């Protein structure tokens, strides 16, 4: 901190202080220009101009050639594929069996089977377990790729269809506009119902 220079007098308009004016203090004590306070008060009082766009976070995953979007609030985590153990008498094309994630046993499901998308005979290296959840129902779903997570406008275009797989139509309720192009939005309720059904 520079010491006060005694040769510099107090700036005009300020009362001199006992002989050794401090530059910083004098700056802070300087009266604001006229109208300054009122202008800022007005600014703060104003509501933000335009409403923020209604953005919702979605997780994007791929099954075969199709990409789907599921609200991130239903996604718990993404895990690498793990060995699945079939349950005798209960396993079916959708319910693949038990899988252990971090020491906790989960139920594994094939979204390919549920959505009617043809699955490759061996999973691609990008394949992952997408762990999805609705209160009380957690599933580890096999997907070909987890493309990413993004915030997009929640409002989806109804009626338009981008999916080729006819079965998937039942589980989707519209198309989202994303920077990657149009993506089918998964209707969470129907998804979990379909999964639950596979346990019967």
């Amino acid at each position, binding site marked *: 901190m520079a010491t006060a220079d005694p040769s510099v007098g107090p700036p005009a308009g300020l009362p001199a202080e006992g002989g050794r004016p401090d530059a910083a203090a004098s700056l802070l004590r300087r009266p604001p220009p006229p109208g300054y306070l009122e202008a800022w008060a007005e600014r703060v009082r104003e509501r933000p101009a335009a409403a923020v766009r209604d953005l919702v976070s979605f997780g994007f995953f791929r099954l075969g050639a199709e990409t789907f979007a599921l609200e991130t609030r239903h996604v718990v985590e993404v895990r690498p594929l793990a060995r699945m153990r079939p349950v005798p008498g209960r396993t079916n*094309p959708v319910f693949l069996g*038990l899988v252990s994630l971090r020491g906790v046993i989960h139920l594994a499901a094939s979204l390919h089977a*549920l959505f009617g998308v043809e699955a490759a005979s061996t999973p691609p290296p990008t394949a992952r377990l997408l762990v999805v959840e609705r209160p009380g129902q957690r599933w580890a779903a096999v997907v070909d790729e987890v493309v990413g997570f993004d915030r997009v406008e929640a409002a989806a275009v109804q009626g338009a269809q981008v999916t080729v797989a006819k079965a998937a139509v039942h589980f989707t309720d519209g198309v989202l506009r994303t920077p990657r192009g149009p993506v089918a939005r998964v209707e969470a309720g129907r998804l979990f119902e379909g999964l639950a059904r596979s346990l019967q």
Partner: protein
Amino acid sequence: MTPPADDLAGASLYDLFRAEVEQHVAVLEQGLVGLEAAPGDLSRIEPLMRAAHSVKGAARIVGLTEAVALAHAMEDLLVAAQQGRAVLASEAVDALLAGTDVLRRVGGIPQDEAASWLTSPAAGTEGLVRRLRSAEHGVPPPPTEAATGRGGTGGTPPAPLAPPAPPPPAAADGASRREATAGRAPAGPVRVSAEGLTRMLAYAGEGVVQARRLAAHADQLEGLRRGLDRLASHVERTAERLRKESLGPRAREAVQVLRGEVAALRQEMAARSEAFDLSVRQGADVAGRLYREVLESRLRPFGEGLSAYPRLVRDLSRELGKQVRLEVVGRDVPVDRDILEALEAPLNHMVRNALDHGLEGPEERLSRGKEPFGRLRIEARHHAGMLEIRVADDGRGIDLPAVRRRIVDRGMVMEEIARSFTEDELLEFLFLPGFSTAREVTQVSGRGVGLDVVQTMAREAGGHVRAERRAAGGTAFVMTLPITRSVVRVALVEIAGEPYGLPLTQIDRIVRVEAAEVLTVEGRQAFAHDGRVVGLVPAAEVLGAQGRTRGGEGVTAVLVRGGRDVYGLVVDRYVGEQTFDVRTLDPRLGKVANVSAAALDDRGDPILILDVQDLLRSIDQLLHEGGLRTVRAAAGQADRAARRVRRILVVDDSITVREVERKLLANRGYAVDVCVDGADAWNALRSQAYDLVLTDVDMPRMDGIELLRRIREDARLGRLPVMIVSYKDRPEDRMRGLEAGANAYVTKSSFHEDALVREVLHLVGEPRVEEDEGEEGPP
């Protein structure tokens, strides 16, 4: 997230009081009975006195005045006894026990009712206090109290009745309370919710698995290090060779740099690898210790579950007019807390049984040359990796001829067969519901409900129970249980290519049956073992999985026993014995047939633990339905496909039609599911695999034609056989259906059983897939 119910951190003062009372009451009860047996042993009084004192203090904190008075009277009596001013004979002990009962009951009453209950005549606190005070001063109790018929204390000369001791001054009380707190061992028990403990165990187990995975990484790192070493020596050799060449200074420098870099890297790698190794070992060590500690915290000493028994035996034997001495061996044997809890009821039954039926009264015993008091012994021990609990008495023993007679009298078996039964086989009958050789039903037992309940409970806990006749006379019941439910020792086997665990407590043994030893008895395969014919059952078929039996080499069979039936469950191979950490199955699965729980194997992958009881039921079912296929143990036979049942989906909005169609097909042997309209069916088709769809045309939400169109357009379902069953019988309707892609069109007017079933047979084939078909079925 709400904290679990017994998490004391959020408990109220009253809850703490109740917890404390529970603890002290247990001490009092056990100690008092022991004291009665050895009245001269003054050292036993100290803990009782402290317990009464603690209850007094706790009751004072929550303001239950009557309880304070009661506990105070008990404490004073005990102090008097300790100082030799009073003698604790039966009456005194009775009074103390009665006081303990009242205190226990207070601990079970909600807070707002406690005070009023204590002052009510039902509690009888006032009378009790009087009894206790009388005993303390060696004065015979007032006549009303002596109505129970037991004598007064007597013994000590009557002392002048001192006025009840005034409440001690506050300061002294504070000091004694502090002393009591200090006296309470710092290493006392802590309450944790059962779920919390289970979670801890799961995480600890996972920690061990992760440590093992890390060890694998450490090995790989070691491999890298060796690779680097090889690279380094390669570089050295190349540098040597280059030195002999004439190289320019820049090249020489480059070689030097290279050598330097590689050498540095090698050193670094060696250091890192060693450090990582050490870390991994330490991690594994800690994980292992944590796991074992958490596991052990699930274990409680066996004696903890026996606190009520001395009292029970004492009261019961007095009621029956018998004299019984209870011996407990193995109080410290560790038992899983869940099992300890599950043991309560069966032990109770067995003890009552022994007291009521097994042991004789003193006169009868004397007449037989025995000591007048009977001995009842409860013993716990670990044997062959399992927990064994014996309840033995030296009483009359089981009257085998009477059992034999009873079996015949009740028409259970024919006399000749009954005569041929061995002792073991006869004893098994004791465990049948409603079986009792008691002549009268007493209040204690004899209703014939006791022993079968014991067996059910033993099985539910994962073990079994058997009866034994002791050589020296008397009876013993032996329960074999797993030491802990949370960890189970299994025989690891492979069935249809997947690993499964069979709990050791539920199987007899595993045997290898050579091809030549396989017999065919009544159309089923079996082999001779231990003098009996044991049926062979392919485990894969019991589970409904695709079996993979190889021909020619013989089979591995796991012997399982259900009552008096023994079966040999044929598995692919036996891998070995292993211990697994049990996980409950996801509740959404509901009850999974034949499976009891899941576990994680060494590599952290899920593995299923089978339920032998369930398997036996499934075997029974299979045998009755005649669906059991034979085990291929003879040489040179090809694999057979398992006989899967074909599944049909019936879709119709009329409940009657649905039922009729379903019954028709189910009776023929198909598996049938029903749906109420096209949309419902479309959902079902996508989550389940079906061999055929039977659908109506006119239905709400989605009609049959639309359903059919969707099926035909679907990649997976496209070729699914669909039969339309409709009232519409005009040619154009039939055309429409067939054009939409139906394989068959059947009208309901021409509907009668044969037609429908014949059409179905024609479309998909028999209910069970035949051996020479693929999964497709006939075209």
